[in-house]
């Protein structure tokens, strides 16, 4: 019995239950964890029913919604969205577990977290552009409050900034959608119907429409130069929210872009070089700025830009290795950035500082932190044996097939990431003891559990990538074949 609607509604049910609990109750956290884990387990159970050989939509459910407008409530998953759904449920579970430090207004917090989870799942499962757009915008509401009410010092600015940026991008996306809707013969928002309409358009129009989408999704991804919201939002958001922000929210942008690329292949083909340049620039730009940061969270935020540059590069390569690498990198970065924000967040709760220079010699005091954080940083560099390596390797192979030696720049990006990862590890864990952090406690069992899941995740994929690759293979094949036939 596998129903995507149930999966979508599970967190909502949790949110409703939380809303009727008394506001100071300790039950709230328990209920939130319970529903997050049920959702996670339910999502995992889909693995056994998921057919990896088919590139078609699976478990799809279509209910006409507004027939005059051509909208419908259509859900479905394929090899591209299913890994994202798994990632989203996993990271939400981790984020909720890691929310121990949120002690005030817990009711609102957990309620919003569960709503956010539902909205994100909706984005990945929607098979109708109108539904997609609704969920897309709906993620903003919980996020706005989560950052604005539980964030750091400059939280109001960060939340407003974030919403404005995303809304601004969404306007372009909406415009493109409307133009497409107009061009679709059956006047429908259903993804497959729009797909046919879109592919019939002349190349010029396709390019314009694609550019609209690119702005909309590029803000979320983010792509240079429309990433202005990200450093502030990541730094100011409470750590569990940062996990979700960089772990899943960024992937929504990339996911949308993949769907759009599939819809407007000719436009992507003609913009291929442009996308490559953007990707490489983001990659190096993000890396260099991450290196320049002395704020730990800021550093991870900028490193996200760099890593998402790899995703964009993979997409732009438009071949099987590239798209596989892009998807892999989305999963890998979700796990790695999740782990990093989790660990740094926990560290921040103990020390109340994010300045790298305030830390030193932690390996003596908090060996568990040291081990896990080092592993996470190594994974961020894409060390062989971690998921990032599989991803970057695929992307580099794909990009090399497409552009040849230009991808040398990717290696420079990787080297820069190695530079800041190694520096940060050195700063945090080695060196002389400052004496001011001698009494901070190491990871507690719950935190250890959360961190180990993520670390296990990226190590497992790093050592045994076959399973994850299988999950994606049919859809990525389908994707690359489309472009092979166009070339």
């Amino acid at each position, binding site marked *: 019995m596998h129903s995507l609607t149930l999966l979508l509604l599970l967190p909502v049910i949790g949110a409703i239950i939380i809303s009727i609990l008394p506001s100071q109750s300790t039950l709230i956290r328990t209920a939130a964890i319970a529903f997050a884990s049920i959702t996670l387990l339910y999502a995992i159970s889909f693995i056994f029913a998921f057919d990896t050989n088919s590139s078609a939509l699976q478990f799809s459910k279509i209910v006409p919604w507004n027939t005059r407008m051509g909208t419908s409530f259509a859900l479905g998953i394929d090899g591209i969205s299913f890994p994202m759904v798994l990632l989203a449920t996993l990271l939400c579970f981790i984020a909720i577990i890691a929310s121990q430090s949120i002690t005030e207004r817990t009711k609102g917090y957990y309620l919003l977290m569960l709503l956010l989870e539902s909205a994100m799942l909706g984005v990945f499962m929607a098979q109708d552009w109108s539904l997609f757009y609704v969920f897309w915008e709906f993620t903003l509401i919980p996020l706005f409050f989560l950052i604005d009410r539980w964030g750091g010092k400059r939280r109001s600015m960060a939340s407003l900034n974030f919403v404005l940026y995303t809304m601004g991008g969404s306007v372009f996306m909406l415009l493109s959608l409307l133009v497409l809707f107009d061009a679709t013969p059956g006047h429908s928002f259903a993804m497959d119907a729009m797909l046919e309409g879109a592919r019939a358009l002349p190349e010029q129009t396709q390019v314009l429409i694609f550019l609209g989408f690119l702005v909309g999704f590029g803000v979320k991804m983010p792509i240079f130069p429309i990433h202005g919201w990200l450093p502030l939002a990541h730094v100011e958001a409470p750590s569990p929210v940062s996990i979700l922000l960089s772990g899943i929210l960024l992937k929504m942008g990339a996911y949308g872009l993949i769907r759009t690329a599939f819809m407007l292949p000719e436009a992507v083909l003609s913009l291929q070089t442009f996308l490559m340049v953007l990707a490489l620039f983001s990659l190096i730009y993000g890396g260099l700025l991450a290196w320049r*940061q*002395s704020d730990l969270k800021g550093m991870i935020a900028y490193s996200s830009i760099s890593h998402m540059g790899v995703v964009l590069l993979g997409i732009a390569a438009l071949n099987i290795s590239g798209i596989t690498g892009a998807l892999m990198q989305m999963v890998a970065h979700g796990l790695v950035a999740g782990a990093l924000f989790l660990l740094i967040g926990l560290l921040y709760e103990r020390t109340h500082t994010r*300045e*790298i*220079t305030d830390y030193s010699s932690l390996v003596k005091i908090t060996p568990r932190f040291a081990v896990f954080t080092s592993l996470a940083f190594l994974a961020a560099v894409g060390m062989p044996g971690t998921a990032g390596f599989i991803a970057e390797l695929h992307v580099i192979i794909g990009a090399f097939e497409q552009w040849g030696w230009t991808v040398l720049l990717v290696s420079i990006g990787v080297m820069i990431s190695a530079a800041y990862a190694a520096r940060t590890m050195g*700063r945090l864990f080695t060196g*002389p003891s400052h004496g001011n952090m001698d009494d901070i406690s190491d990871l507690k069992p719950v935190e250890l559990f959360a961190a180990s899941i993520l670390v296990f995740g990226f190590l497992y994929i790093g050592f045994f990538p076959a399973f994850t690759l299988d999950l994606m293979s049919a859809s990525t094949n389908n994707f690359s074949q489309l472009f092979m036939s166009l070339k």
Partner: protein
Amino acid sequence: MNEANSILKAFVWLIPLLPMLGTLAIAIGFISGKNRGESGEKQTTLIANGTALLSLLIVLAVDLHAIVIGIPGHLELAQWFSSGDYQITLSFNLDTFALVMMTLVAIISVMMIRFSVNYMHREAGYQRFFMIMNLFMGAMLLIVMAGNVVLMFTGWELAGVSSYLLIAYVYDRPIATQNATRVFITNRIGDAGFIIAIFLSFHLLKTLEWNEILSSADSLSPLGSNILAASFLLAAIAKSAQVPFAPWISRAIEGPTPSSAIFYGSLMVHAGVYLIIRLQPVLDNAPIIMTTLALIGLLTVAYGFFSNLVQTDVKSNLIFSTTSQVGLMFFSCGMGWFELASWHLVLHAIWRAYQFLHAPAIMHMMDHKTRPVHPILKRQGWLYTASLQRFWLDPMADWLLVRPIKRIAHDTDRFDERVINRLVGLPEQTSAITSIADWEMHKSASEMSAAEKYEVSRGHGIAGKILENLADMLFWFEEHLVLKSGGDGLLKVLNIVGHYLLQIEELLSQPRYLILLILITFAVII
């Protein structure tokens, strides 16, 4: 015959392996603390003698087999490794000469190991000594038995290493370690020749097996056979201490007496001769090398003879006479008298081993008196000086090779430190921080300052500086354009617009403007 050979194949590899296993067993015992100190001597002795003896027994069995059934010849046991058409087998070449040599090596080694039990009693490093002796025995057996060049080279190197270890047996004496290093390096020059020879035989003959090399030697071009022979010759003269490599052997007697006996008196010094004799078919086609061989032999004979005349201690006497004898063997090879050379080799090995072992005892028995200067040397003063100085071979090598290399090394080091390290961004060695403790001292001296924050994103070396500047530039761009005018700027614009709208709203809420607006509306409608 084949069946008999297959039985042989099952055991023959144990001959060189058993002594080496003995080494391993003693080493394991020592590491685990089982046979340390005097109490462990018995166990060590048992292992060393047992494995050596067992090896000898197998050797004798093989001999018996050869006498009864026939010479086994070339035995190929297994493939060691292969890469492309490069293939190395585990094979043994048991022809008559190898059998004789094998028996000789095994017997002398076993006797020497047995002798050492008493000689080394209560010496520090007793276990170490036997480990090395056993290793040497295995290595030597490997040299004489090896069926291909690479396997022989393995033995060749192991013998070199054990020789190094034994010369430096008393490793706390600077002279011993210095001599050991010198000997080892001299030997390495010969090894280079051996490696080139391996390459050449693979390149020219497409094989590394002895039997194939020797049988196809005739097919080589004159140039090819000369070069091949020359490379092997280099290896041989270095191992057998011929001029100009001769001085190493007098340094080598630094080791304990039994080891001098087995290594330099009787076995290892003959390895070169063995190699030359084995190479007979190749040498037959290389007349130039034959002449060189004879010349080197003669020179060495002269070198050994004259140097010997001025020696006053028995060990040096013996070693120089060994040198001249081996020189004679080379000379006979050079003249083409390989048969003679092999007889000479075997007999000399036995005789010299006996002499070396006997030397300390002779010294005890003899009424020792300094020998007068030989009449030849008396007449020729320069020859006397030259002999005393051992013909300046060592200083010459120093002047020609050691000092220039040292100077180049020094310059490269300076270059590395002054230029490369700075470019790469490594700390200079002179000011390098060598330990965490140093670093902590260094740090606490200059407390965390404001510069510390800058320190986080500071690059070292050229790449680091480029990175730093690029990052600074992008950071400025990010701060001013993306964050300030992008994010914050957006808010600011909204605020201003909102402010104006509010004013308009306020104006509109005043009755006169409202009425005006209504009037305008009417006007438009009408």
